[in-house]
C-alpha cells in the first residue's frame, strides 16, 4: 500500500513537470496550470482556517492581494528579485493577518465571517486609494521574473510554481500532522475542552490564521509574477467566494481537495465560454437527477419533498442552458449555485465523496493513518501528578458567582487537601457545576478568590489554570469527536512539546523524539484507564461509558496535581462504575488529588475522604462522608423537611 502511494506520487509529480512539454508551447494553458497551482497553495492555507478550525474567512482575497502588492511594489519600485519578494510577502501578509486576527478571533462564526469580510473590503479600498504606493486603480505592470540571471518565460515560471506547490503541500501536511494540527482540530471539536487541556483556543486560532495568512501572501506573490500585471479589482469579494467554493468543493481537511478545487474554479470560466459544452453538462446533470430520483423510489421512500429542490434546480439549469446564448455573464450565479449544491449535497467535497465511495468497498484504503504502538509497553511515569509543596492544595474563599439577580454560588468556601478525594454533592441546581467552572477559570467569580498551591488563580484564563495543574472532565461529554482516542489523549499531552514551528517544518530529531514519547505515553494512559483496545478508534464511535473514561485519560495527560471529575459515573452501568471506582483510587495512589461531583451516593461515600454539600448556592455541610450522611440539613436538602 505504501509502495503504491509512493509510486502514484512519483507519477503525478512527473506528469506535472512534463505538462508544458506535452502541451507544446501553448502558453495560455501553461499559464492556467500555473494559476491552478497558485490557487492551490492559497487553498492549503485557507483549509487550515476553514477545514481545521472550522471558521469562515472572507478575508483571503484581501490577504492574497496584500501579498501580491507587496511583491508587486517591491519589484516595480525597487527591482527586487521575485524570490525575495516572495519571502517579504509571506511576512508582510502574516503581519496583516496577525493585525486582523488579534481582535477578530475573539469572536467566532458569523461574527468572524463579517469581520473578515470587513477586512477584505478595507484592504481592497486601501489598495485602490493609496495610489502613491500602489499606483491606484491603474495597477502595476512588472517585468518577467529573473532567476540566475535568466529571464523566466511562462514555462520556466511554471516549474518554479510547481516546485513551490509540492513544497508547500509537504510543509502544510507536516504542520497539520503535528501537535499544532491536533490543536487546530481540537479547538473545532470542543473549544471549552481545548482550553481546559491547556490548549488556548484564542492563541491557536490566531496562530492558525497567521499561518494561513502567510501562505495566502505567498500565493499572492506568486500570482503577481504569473500575471505580470495586478490591479485592485482582482482582489474583490468574488475572488473570496471563489476560494471558498474551491475549498469546500474540492474537499476540506485533505491536500488533494485544494488541488481539485483550484482546478475547477480556474477552468470553470473557460467551460462557460463554450456554450455547447455547458449544454452537454446540463444534460449530464439531468441524468444525475433522474438517477437520484429513481434511487430514491427504489429504496422504498415515497416522500416527494426531498426531490423538489433537485428537480426544480435541474430544470432551471437546462432551460437556461438552452435559452441563453452566452453564459459568461452568469458566471457568478453558477458559482453561487455550486456553493449551494456543495453545502447541501456534497458536504465533504469531491475528494471526501470519493473517499467515502472507496471506503464503501475498501475501508482500509481510506482509514485514518493508524498509529502503531506496542500495546504491552507501559511507561512507569505515564500517569503522574505535579508535585506541589503546600498541604491545602486548593482553597476557595467566599466565592460569589452572580448571573443577573441569581446567586449561583453565595460566598462559598472550599478547601481541598493534598492527596485526598474530595466529594462535592448537592441536589440539581445547587451550584456544583458552577463551582467547577469557577475553579477551572471558565467563569470569573463576581467576588472571592481561588488559590491553588498558595497562588491566586481566579481571574486567570482556563488554559493557564490547566497548565498550572488543574485538569477536569465534563458532565456533558466534550471529546474531540473526529479524533482518535490516542489523539484525544495527545491533546492533553500538548504541554509536553517544546518543539516550535521550525522543528515541525524540518522534522528535527527533537520533534520526532517528542512525538514518539507523547504517543507512547498516550498509549500507556489509555491502558491505565482500560481503553487499550480503542487506541485508533474515533472518539465519537466509542461506547458512552468508554467516552467518560477517555475524558479522564485525556485529563491525566496534563500531569494534573488536581483532577476535577464532573459526574463521571452518570450513565454508566454497574460494572463500569466498579471499574471507575478502581481507576479513581489508582489516580489517588499516583499522588493526584481529586474533586468528585457525583450523584451516585455509594460511589461518593465509598471513596471520598471529605465531602462538601451545596444547596441553593450555599455550603450547608462539610466533613467525613459518614458525618455528612447523617447531617439533618443534608437530609432535608435531598428529601425535604418533615411536614411542619
Amino acid at each position, binding site marked *: 500500500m505504501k509502495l503504491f502511494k509512493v509510486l502514484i506520487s512519483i507519477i503525478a509529480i512527473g506528469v506535472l513537470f512534463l505538462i508544458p512539454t506535452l502541451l507544446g508551447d501553448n502558453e495560455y494553458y501553461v499559464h492556467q496550470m500555473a494559476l491552478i497551482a497558485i490557487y492551490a497553495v492559497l487553498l492549503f492555507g485557507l483549509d487550515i482556517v476553514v477545514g481545521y478550525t*472550522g471558521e*469562515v474567512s*472572507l478575508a483571503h482575497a484581501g490577504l492574497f492581494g496584500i501579498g501580491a502588492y507587496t511583491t508587486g511594489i517591491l519589484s516595480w519600485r525597487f527591482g527586487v528579485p521575485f524570490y525575495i519578494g516572495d519571502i517579504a510577502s509571506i511576512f508582510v501578509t502574516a503581519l496583516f493577518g496577525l493585525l*486582523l486576527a*488579534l*481582535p*477578530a478571533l*475573539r*469572536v467566532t*462564526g*458569523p*461574527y468572524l*465571517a*463579517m*469581520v473578515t*469580510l*470587513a*477586512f477584505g*473590503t*478595507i484592504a481592497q*479600498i*486601501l489598495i*485602490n*486609494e493609496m495610489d502613491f504606493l500602489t499606483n491606484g486603480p491603474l495597477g502595476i505592470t512588472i517585468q518577467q521574473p529573473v532567476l540566475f540571471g535568466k529571464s523566466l518565460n511562462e514555462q520556466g515560471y511554471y516549474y518554479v510554481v510547481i516546485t513551490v506547490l509540492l513544497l508547500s503541500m509537504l510543509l502544510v501536511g507536516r504542520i497539520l500532522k503535528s501537535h499544532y494540527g491536533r490543536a487546530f482540530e481540537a479547538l473545532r471539536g470542543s473549544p*471549552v475542552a481545548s482550553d481546559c487541556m491547556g490548549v488556548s483556543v484564542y492563541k491557536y486560532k490566531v496562530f492558525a490564521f497567521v499561518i494561513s495568512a502567510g501562505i495566502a501572501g505567498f500565493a499572492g506573490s506568486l500570482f503577481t509574477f504569473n500575471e505580470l500585471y495586478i490591479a485592485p479589482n482582482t482582489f474583490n*469579494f*468574488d475572488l473570496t*467566494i471563489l476560494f*471558498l467554493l474551491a475549498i*469546500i468543493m474540492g474537499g476540506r481537511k485533505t491536500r488533494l481537495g485544494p488541488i481539485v478545487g483550484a482546478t475547477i474554479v480556474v477552468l470553470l470560466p473557460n467551460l462557460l465560454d463554450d456554450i455547447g459544452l455547458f449544454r452537454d453538462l446540463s444534460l449530464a446533470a439531468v441524468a444525475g437527477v433522474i438517477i437520484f430520483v429513481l434511487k430514491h423510489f427504489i429504496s422504498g421512500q415515497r416522500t416527494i419533498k426531498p426531490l423538489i*429542490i433537485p428537480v426544480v434546480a435541474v430544470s432551471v439549469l437546462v432551460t437556461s442552458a438552452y435559452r441563453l446564448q452566452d453564459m459568461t*455573464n*452568469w*458566471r*457568478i*450565479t453558477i*458559482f*453561487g*449555485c455550486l*456553493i*449551494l449544491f456543495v*453545502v*447541501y449535497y456534497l458536504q465533504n467535497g469531491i475528494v471526501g465523496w470519493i473517499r467515502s465511495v472507496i471506503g464503501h468497498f475498501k475501508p482500509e484504503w481510506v482509514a485514518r493513518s493508524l498509529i502503531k504502538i506496542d500495546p504491552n509497553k507501559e511507561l512507569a511515569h505515564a500517569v503522574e501528578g505535579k508535585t506541589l509543596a503546600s498541604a491545602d492544595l486548593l482553597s476557595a474563599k467566599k466565592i460569589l458567582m452572580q*448571573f443577573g439577580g441569581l446567586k449561583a454560588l453565595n460566598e462559598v468556601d472550599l478547601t481541598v487537601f493534598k492527596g485526598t478525594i474530595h466529594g462535592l454533592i448537592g441536589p440539581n441546581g445547587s451550584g456544583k*457545576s458552577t463551582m467547577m*467552572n469557577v475553579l477551572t477559570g*471558565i467563569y470569573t467569580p463576581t467576588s472571592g478568590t481561588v488559590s491553588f498551591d498558595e497562588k491566586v488563580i481566579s481571574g486567570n484564563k482556563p488554559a493557564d489554570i490547566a497548565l498550572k495543574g488543574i485538569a477536569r472532565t*465534563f*458532565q*456533558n461529554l*466534550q471529546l474531540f469527536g473526529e479524533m482518535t482516542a490516542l489523539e484525544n489523549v495527545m491533546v492533553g499531552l500538548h504541554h509536553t512539546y517544546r518543539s516550535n514551528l521550525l522543528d515541525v517544518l524540518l522534522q528535527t530529531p527533537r520533534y520526532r523524539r517528542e512525538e514518539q514519547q507523547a504517543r507512547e505515553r498516550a498509549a500507556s494512559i489509555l491502558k491505565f484507564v482500560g481503553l487499550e483496545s480503542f487506541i485508533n478508534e474515533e472518539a465519537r464511535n466509542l461506547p458512552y461509558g468508554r467516552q467518560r473514561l477517555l475524558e479522564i485519560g485525556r485529563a491525566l495527560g496534563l500531569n494534573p496535581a488536581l483532577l476535577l471529575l464532573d459526574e463521571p459515573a452518570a450513565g454508566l452501568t454497574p460494572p463500569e462504575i466498579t471499574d471507575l471506582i478502581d481507576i479513581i483510587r489508582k489516580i489517588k495512589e499516583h499522588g493526584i488529588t481529586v474533586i468528585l461531583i457525583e450523584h451516585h451516593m455509594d460511589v461518593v461515600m465509598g471513596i471520598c475522604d471529605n465531602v462538601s454539600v451545596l444547596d441553593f448556592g450555599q455550603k450547608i455541610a462539610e466533613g467525613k462522608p459518614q458525618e455528612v450522611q447523617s447531617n439533618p440539613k443534608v437530609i432535608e436538602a435531598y428529601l425535604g423537611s418533615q411536614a411542619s
Partner: protein
Amino acid sequence: MEILLQLILSGVALGMIYAVVAFGYQSTFATSGTLNFGQGEALMLGAMFGLSLAGDVMGGPYLNYWLMIPAVLIFGAFQGMVVEAVGVRPAIKTKSEFGWIMSTIALGIIFRNVAENIWGKDDMPFPSPISSTPLHIFGASVLPMELMVDVGALLMMVLVELFNRKTIYGKAVVATASDRDAAGLMGINTRMVITFSYALSSMSAAFAGVLIAPITLTGASMGAVLGLKAFAVAIIGGLNSGMGIIVGGILLGIAETTTGFYLSTGYKDVPGLVLLLLVLAIKPSGLFGKTAIKKV
C-alpha cells in the same frame, strides 16, 4: 459650521438607513440565531424593483412612488421567504452554522448577478418623489428626502415594535426569540416564526432600499457594502438592542459623511469597518448589548 451641521443631518439620514437594515439582522438573529449575509442584496433588489415600478427603466412608470412602496414591501417579504426556505431552513435542521453562512452568501451573490443581468451593471438615478430643492435649516441645506428617510425609518421601527407588543402574533415572535425550544413546546409554530422573521428582515431591507435610492444611485452593486456596514451597526449597537442600532447607525452615518467630506470620498467606507473591528475587539456584545453566559 453650517457645513458640519449639513454633514450631520446627512449622516443621520444615512444612519437611519443602516438602522433599518440592521434591524433586519436583529430580527432573524433573535428568532433563529442566523443572519442573512445577503441582506445588502435584499436592499438592492427592493430598490431595483421599486425603480422598475416607479421609474422608466422597464417601460414604466407603472405606479407612483407611494403606491410602489407596498408592492416593494410584499416583494421584499417574498424574497426573504425564499432566502429562508432555500438557504436557512435546511441548515438549521442540520445545525450547521457553516451551512447557513455559506448558503446565504451564495444566495446574495446569485441575486446580485441576476440583478446585473436584468438591469445592467451601471448605476441609475431614482426619481425623487418629493421636491429636490434643499430646505434650509440653521443655514444648512438639507434634502427633503433625507428628512423623509428619518421619518420613514422611525415609523417602520415603531410599527414593528407595536406589532410585537400588542398582538398575539408579535408575542409569538418575542417568545421564540427568548427561547425557541420552550416556545415550540407551548405550541408556537417556531418554524413559521422564523420564516416570518426572514420575511420581515428582507422587507425592512427592501424598504430601506427605496428610501435611500432617491438620495444615492441605484445599481446592482449598491447593496454589498451597505449590508456590511449595517452589520457593523448591528454589532456596534448590540444584536439584541433596539435603541442600540439607532444610536449606532447615526454614529456611523455621521462618521462616514464627515470622513467623506474632510478626507476623501474613497475612504468613506473605512470608518465603519474599522469601528466594527474595534467594537468586536473591545466589547463583542456591542455597546448596548447584554453579554451571553456560556453554559458548559
